[in-house]
């Protein structure tokens, strides 16, 4: 919990600000407690299969065997990618079948209070319906939270060790829930090269524009220091290889994979190899690894290839 001790020992001048941020940060402590211990090699499960429901069932089985989402978990905030008004087959958003299977599985595990906040890029109404994710949520009795609607959605937090991103307004649901799960889709991205787990957090903040103006890759890596989800599940059942992040693209691949890890840098690094020779080709992975947030080299992770 290096970041918290750093946070607590603020200088007097920054004390007020710092204590505010620390209070905010303390709220996410439960989700962070479950994060990877530093030093050891993080596990990455690469689950292969054509049937998305079976794939997610296998994924949840592994999660359960690894301590689930933690002890005494009552609320879970799920960050999907429902940013674009695109049909599921485009691969612009997280696959709704996976979302539905995940929600059903989590409910079976006894967690009934699930929140799905999203700050979409295209019109929220069009994005949530075209992506099929709103329907998947509804089918499981979960309501999506449209972060674009008026209301008190965000809370300002300090980013520990942030180089470009020093403070940011984050959707409070991710800080107030007992567990946080990031379930992005892996795809090509015109600005960031690839969009996977760490990039997906841009849909949880209020002002994305700031990231674009102030060294996008550094901001993505900085935010990963603050937001460490309990689990990261990358949807790589189909990957948009060009024209991302919105598509549609004719250049599609179907790896039929889910990438699961407690460490989002490791998950991103593995997923990036579906697109590029080396994870280091994606600057924010390299920067996050340099910050000690996780490994960018495959030999620094325990990779478990599983047939789902």
């Amino acid at each position, binding site marked *: 919990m290096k970041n918290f001790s750093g946070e607590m020992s603020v200088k007097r001048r920054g004390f007020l600000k710092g204590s505010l941020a620390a209070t905010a940060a303390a709220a996410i402590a439960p989700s962070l407690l479950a994060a990877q211990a530093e030093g050891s090699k993080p596990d990455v499960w690469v689950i292969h299969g054509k049937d998305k429901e079976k794939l997610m069932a296998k994924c949840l089985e592994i999660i359960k065997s690894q301590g689930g989402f933690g002890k005494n978990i009552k609320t879970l905030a799920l960050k999907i990618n429902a940013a674009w*008004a695109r049909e599921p087959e485009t691969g612009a958003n997280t696959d709704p079948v996976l979302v539905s299977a995940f929600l059903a599985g989590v409910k079976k595990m006894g967690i009934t209070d699930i929140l799905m906040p999203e700050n979409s890029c295209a*019109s929220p109404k069009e994005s949530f319906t075209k992506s099929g994710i709103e329907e998947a949520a509804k089918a499981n009795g979960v309501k999506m939270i449209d972060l674009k609607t008026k209301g008190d959605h965000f809370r300002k937090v300090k980013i520990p060790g942030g180089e470009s991103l020093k403070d940011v307004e984050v959707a409070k649901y991710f800080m107030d829930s007992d567990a946080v799960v990031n379930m992005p889709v892996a795809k090509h991205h*015109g*600005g960031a090269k690839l969009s996977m787990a760490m990039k997906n957090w841009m849909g949880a903040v209020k002002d994305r524009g700031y990231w674009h103006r102030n*060294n*996008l890759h550094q901001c993505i890596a900085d935010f990963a220091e603050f937001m460490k989800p309990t689990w990261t599940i990358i949807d790589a059942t189909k990957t948009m290889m060009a024209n991302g992040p919105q598509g549609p693209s004719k250049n599609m691949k179907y790896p039929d994979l889910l990438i699961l890890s407690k460490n989002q840098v490791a998950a991103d690094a593995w997923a990036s190899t579906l697109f590029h020779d080396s994870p280091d080709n994606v600057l924010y992975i390299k920067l996050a690894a340099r910050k000690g947030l996780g490994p960018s080299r495959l030999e620094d992770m325990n990779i478990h290839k599983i047939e789902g």
Partner: protein
Amino acid sequence: MVSRTVGKIRLLTRLFCLVLFTGFLLAASLPQLSRILPQSGVFALTASFISEKNISFPALWLILPGLFILAAVLRGRVFCLWVCPMGTLFSAASKYSLKWQLLRWNIAGTVFWAGIFSSILSVPVFLFADPLSQFTRLGLPLNGLLIPATFIPLAFSLALLLLHFIQPMIWCSKLCPLGYLAKFLKRDKTRLLSKFAKERRELIGGIVVGIPLALCAKKLGTFQRDKSAGKYPLLPPGAVRTQRFSALCMRCYACIKVCPSGILTAKFPHNADAGSWFAPEMDADKGACGQYCVECNRVCPTGAINFLEEKAKQSLQIGVAHVRRGACLAWTDKEYCMVCHEYCPFGAIDIDESPDGIPRPVVKEELCRGCGACQYACPAKRDGKAIIINGVERQNFLHAG
């Protein structure tokens, strides 16, 4: 004079109509109602007919004006005395009037013909001179449409109301072109000839006022257009072109009200023909026109915004994006940005890679629909938005891509 009983019935009818109309105003957030409401304005439709020869809207929409015309032919100003909500308000105010004579002459005929002749030149005077058009737009600020343009009918109506505390019935008896029309339509065979003599004077008066007025307005328009040569306002999809749109649009702002993205707005006159003053237009700083959205097309009561199928809308080019390289984070600040590329629903932004590997945006004009997604999302701040949408002279369906 009417008998006391008829007088009472009439008062009740007028109050009922006033309440009904006011109810419509308050309920105008419902697209269906906001579509019915402005139809009761005869002039907006008349003006549209004359200036653009538009018969595209269904005949159903002509029922209310049709009733007005029928009543006028048979009974003259029966509408004014029994229905008109403005008339009811004004006669109430007139009861407490100072009874000063501000305006001695009845110039309603001149106002009417000036309106007709300026409509022929596509300057919609009736938008401001039609009491119903004013009344139907009174409730816009109450409906949460807090743009300056929506306060004009409110201010106009309030000013007229105040005027009635000075001179009784000044609007209804001296100015109202709608009342003039009702009187004009009532055909009285016995006095046909003498009536024509008076009407001819009014008609000539209308030509003398209306044509120069319209020409001046047009001249002003051309003068302003010179300053912004080749620039066209960004119009809602289906508006086709500026002149057609502003002539058909009755400024009911149902489209602005219903627009889910907030891109539709009405601005104070700028760089435009007087005929298009206060017409709705798009401001991509405020939102992006939804790829699958046809809400404004559904609610427009006059056909100023054509009905479009979702598919047709997607291939309609309403504007073209333009990159301002000096303001661009990628071109000038060497940032990894490409937000415009990211947000473009139509793949109309190409990536041009700089020697140091930074992607920079270039617009593929043949694919750009002008939806404004790029402008709305553009994060550049220092010199304003680095990508902006320019309206096109005429909206066209793209066949490529």
